[in-house]
């Protein structure tokens, strides 16, 4: 009976439910007039938002230049594909992840002594710096035109799998696998001793230091992990759009991910960023299909959201105790 109970608890585990929802997503989306490419974008941005929330919701650090890491992932993917190879199917993806991870570590090393608004402004400056480097370094990044004409490598696992990703549905479920891995890893990290330290750093960094934690390294590592997964999202985005643009790194996109994460309830829920990115992107897509003045409506919607429920969608749900997730986030 205990075995059955364990299986049951795994089935109703919020992660499983989330994955099931996302698996059904592309089939449901057309009902509200959405195209599968929107679903893909939501999924990729969800990875990005989860990565972002490791910093914001769990470590209490607001990065205002996080779009840079999305962009670096895209460029890492593109550059590997263009200059190295597209024959090893995972190489460009890995390049996107590693490039971003390395730079995120370096940035984290520089900024992790600070916190609060100081920290945020530093991330903004660095994010813009990276943006302009991408925008101006024509020889490497293609400058304003970016790097285009990318391909989606064919997945070849000898003897097991040969997958052509040019089909949107296939690509979606490929991304879903990576999303599942990312969500799982991030969930485990958050619920580990390391994750617990991040959360007390958010609540009271001074006390955490008095306990004996060298908070500098925790913040730095948190930033690096966030960078790695942001890089994955960026690489996937390059795969999705077949190109890498400097525009991906512009600071407004950084603001967008902060918005998504907060509106969804990232400050108090692991799944908040997912709700937020789905809401943001679907809303934008729907509204812009009706009117070219979607920015006005989005602006109004967000103003209302911020003023009326600042704790975000899932934050509100948590407060009304509608959903009791076992151990979901601190």
């Amino acid at each position: 009976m205990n075995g059955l109970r364990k299986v049951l608890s795994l089935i109703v585990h919020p992660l499983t439910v989330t994955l099931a929802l996302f698996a059904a997503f592309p089939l449901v989306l057309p009902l509200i007039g959405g195209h599968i490419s929107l679903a893909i974008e939501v999924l990729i941005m969800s990875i990005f938002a989860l990565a972002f929330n490791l910093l914001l919701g769990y470590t209490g650090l607001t990065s205002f230049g996080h779009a840079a890491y999305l962009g670096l992932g895209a460029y890492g993917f593109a550059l590997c594909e263009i200059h190295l190879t597209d024959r090893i199917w995972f190489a460009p993806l890995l390049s996107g992840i590693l490039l971003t991870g390395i730079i995120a570590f370096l940035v984290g090393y520089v900024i992790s002594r600070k916190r609060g608004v100081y920290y945020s402004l530093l991330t903004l400056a660095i994010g813009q710096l990276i943006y302009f480097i991408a925008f101006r370094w024509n020889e490497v990044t293609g400058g304003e035109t970016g790097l285009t004409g990318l391909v989606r490598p064919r997945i070849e696992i000898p003897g097991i799998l040969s997958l052509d990703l040019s089909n949107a549905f296939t690509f979606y479920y490929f991304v879903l696998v990576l999303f599942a891995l990312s969500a799982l890893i991030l969930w485990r990290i958050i619920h580990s001793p390391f994750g617990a330290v991040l959360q007390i750093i958010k609540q009271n960094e001074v006390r955490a230091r008095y306990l004996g934690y060298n908070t500098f390294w925790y913040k730095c590592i948190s930033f690096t992990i966030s960078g790695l997964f942001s890089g994955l999202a960026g690489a996937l985005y390059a795969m999705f759009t077949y190109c890498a643009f400097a525009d991906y790194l512009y600071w407004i996109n950084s603001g967008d991910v902060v918005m998504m994460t907060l509106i969804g309830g990232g400050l108090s829920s692991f799944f908040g960023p997912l709700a937020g990115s789905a809401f943001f992107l679907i809303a934008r897509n729907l509204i812009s299909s009706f009117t070219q003045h979607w920015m006005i409506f989005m602006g109004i919607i967000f103003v209302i959201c911020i003023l009326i429920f600042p704790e975000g969608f899932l934050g509100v749900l948590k407060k009304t105790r509608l959903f009791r997730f076992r151990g979901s986030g601190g």
Partner: protein
Amino acid sequence: MEFIDVQNLAKSFGGLRAVDGISLQVKQGELVSIIGPNGAGKSTLFNLMTGYIRPDTGAVYFQGKEITHLPVYKMASLGISRSFQLLNVFSELTVFENIRMGIQAHLGHGYQFFTRLDGLKEIRDRVPAIIERVGLEGKETARAKDLSYGDNKILDMAIALTADPTVLLLDEPTSGLALKETGRMIDLIRKLSEKLTILLVEHDMNVVFSVSQRIVVMSQGRIIAEGKPEEIRRNETVQEAYLGGEWKC
């Protein structure tokens, strides 16, 4: 060699000399109270001693080794813990979790990324001992922010104990407490002083006179008097510094 040796510590903020050449020696096992009017520099002294602020001049030695410029996060491993004047616990966590975080640090499990936090038995098993030591039984699952102020002060102390310290710096542990809670805190401090060296900053003279072996009086960043409780009680300089003061005998 003194257990704790503070030599000529000084710190200025802008034009203000918050700590102005403080020298202090503490023997192992002693309970020394530091008293003085507000703004005398008592909390700043603790901040300087524990690496939270860098001194302009002076040095701090612990068991013969210099610790002056060590960062805060190294204090716990040396066996130096501190409680705080203003509430400084992890308000979103339960009592159990608060204490667990301290033990986790003490046992060095901070960098485990993939083990389940709940699964670490050796950490879990040490929490009840601390809860019992401070008297918070029955409140393990209460969130710190839902606890009474008095319980929070005790929790603050409990967290400080998780590092298995040999030295406790207590910063106004009874401030804001009601009479009964103050009594509880005094008992706890007395119990702890049997095994630990304690430096106590306090305003409540009842507390000070009932637990201290030695009293140091600070005013405007300097030590103006030092000695056994009876000596201090009779000391005129001290009475002057406390004009209209806080003698609650």
